[in-house]
């Protein structure tokens, strides 16, 4: 992936030394908001490249109408990673950012994220993710899930030097390091996790910047949510399979992944199978096990919700989190079963909308 870039006519010198890649497949509805939020950043990118992965809904036309560079591969690349890699030859700037086509950024998102990359050994930086819409049960569940993860888990991971994932919807990278890694690999369903863990194994640093906020559109119905959960759960299992030996060498990260794997598999099995069986066969009050950790979730979530002036939204969304968690457990167990026991890996990347 040696750079053969020539500066396009859409390039503007803003001093950011940043190119933003926006992979898109049938994203005409949401793309304009994403592009506008990038163009109105406090530190605008020098170039925005939309990679139209053979859409059929006029995605290219929407992008061109807003004056950004549009690249269209000769055939569908099959995944977000493929689309982003297609554009890498066109990147001439010191930094590259990947933003999902349905993700808007806070006005200073780019500025905050780039600040973290000023340190030479920092290869990637990621921001705080919150759903743009919080209406349906699934969006509300995801809202609470993100509040919890980004207020409690991720700052701790960052403090100890190893954020678990540089989220694919909004991350920035040093272009030379990204190229040396071969861009985003298509070998798993979670290319962001794969890249992050690969960077760690090459002794690079990744930072989490909570002040850099983005707002993706999250799944609003079960159909969309199930495709995303399927991809994410298979992606996690695939990455553990691929990286486990390398992870064993990495301080702190091996513990984080081991605990996450335990939660994903054993805790899910306990949640879905053991507790109900104990309640049925031994004592119905074993069902209290579902309530035991409510405070652990409520405290950070309500704190952040109140700070954002969204206390009512947070409180009314809490029950949805527990539904989503239940569903998430099912997908995790299914993924583990298919990937490790049946040896039927998920190979088709489906966004689901």
């Amino acid at each position, binding site marked *: 992936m040696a750079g053969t870039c020539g500066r396009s006519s859409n390039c503007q010198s803003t001093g950011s030394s940043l190119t933003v890649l926006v992979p898109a497949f049938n994203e005409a509805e949401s793309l304009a908001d994403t592009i506008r939020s990038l163009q109105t950043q406090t530190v605008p990118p020098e170039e925005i490249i939309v990679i139209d992965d053979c859409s059929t809904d006029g995605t290219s036309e929407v992008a061109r109408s807003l004056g950004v560079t549009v690249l269209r591969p000769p055939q569908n690349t099959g995944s977000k990673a493929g689309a982003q890699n297609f554009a890498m030859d066109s990147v001439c700037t010191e930094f590259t950012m990947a933003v999902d086509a349905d993700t808007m950024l806070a006005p200073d998102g780019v500025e905050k994220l780039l600040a973290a990359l000023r340190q030479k050994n920092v290869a990637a930086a990621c921001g705080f993710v919150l759903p743009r819409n919080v209406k349906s049960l699934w969006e509300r569940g995801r809202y609470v*899930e*993100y509040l*919890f*993860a980004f*207020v*409690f*888990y991720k*700052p*701790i991971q*960052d*403090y*100890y030097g190893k954020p*678990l*994932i540089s*989220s*694919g919807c909004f991350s920035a990278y040093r272009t030379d390091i990204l190229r040396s890694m071969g861009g985003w690999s298509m070998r798993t369903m*979670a290319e962001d*996790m794969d890249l992050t863990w690969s960077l760690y194994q090459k002794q690079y640093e990744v930072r989490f910047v909570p002040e850099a906020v983005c707002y993706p559109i999250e799944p609003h119905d079960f159909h969309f949510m199930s495709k995303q959960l399927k991809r*994410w759960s298979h*992606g*996690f299992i695939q990455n553990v399979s691929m990286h486990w*030996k390398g992870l*064993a*060498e990495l301080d702190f990260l*091996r*513990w*984080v*992944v*081991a*605990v*996450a*794997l*335990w*939660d*994903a598999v*054993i*805790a*899910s099995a*306990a*949640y879905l199978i053991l507790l109900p069986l104990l309640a049925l066969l031994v*004592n*119905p*009050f*074993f069902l*209290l096990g579902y*309530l*035991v*950790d409510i*405070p*652990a*979730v*409520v*405290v*950070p979530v309500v*704190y952040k919700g109140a700070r954002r002036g969204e206390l009512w939204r947070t409180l009314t969304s809490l029950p949805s*989190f527990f539904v989503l*968690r239940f569903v*998430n*457990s099912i997908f*995790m167990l299914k993924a583990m079963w298919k990937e490790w026991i049946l040896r039927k890996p998920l190979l088709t990347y489906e966004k689901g909308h």
Partner: protein
Amino acid sequence: MAAGIPGTGLGGIFYLFLALFMPVNELLAALHGKSTSSSRRSAAFSFSMAIAILAALVGHAWLMILGLNELKEYLDPQSALGRSVNEATGIVSPAVALLPLYVFGALLVMLTIMRYVLKRQKLADKDVRLDFEGV
């Protein structure tokens, strides 16, 4: 994406420990001249969050036990529900609450052993390569 299931199982305990350890970590970092205002702020925030979570968990458990004990007072101990509540107050005990800690400890031990085995394997592979190269 969010890996694992936030809020369940060992993840919560693991991160609580990490957050509670942060002031110690900052002290050690300060002794080596590596503590920064940013790391201190981060440690203070996560530590405070962990204390608040712990307090809420203890309060929640206390309320649950109180509720069960109150329920016991109103139920016939010979009835099915009365017996269930009686057994439940035995289940919801500090020993059971410590169960996740034992599991967590076992996981840490397993991981340490796995790491040791992998390291030995890596060294053995290196020796085989060196032998092959005639060194």
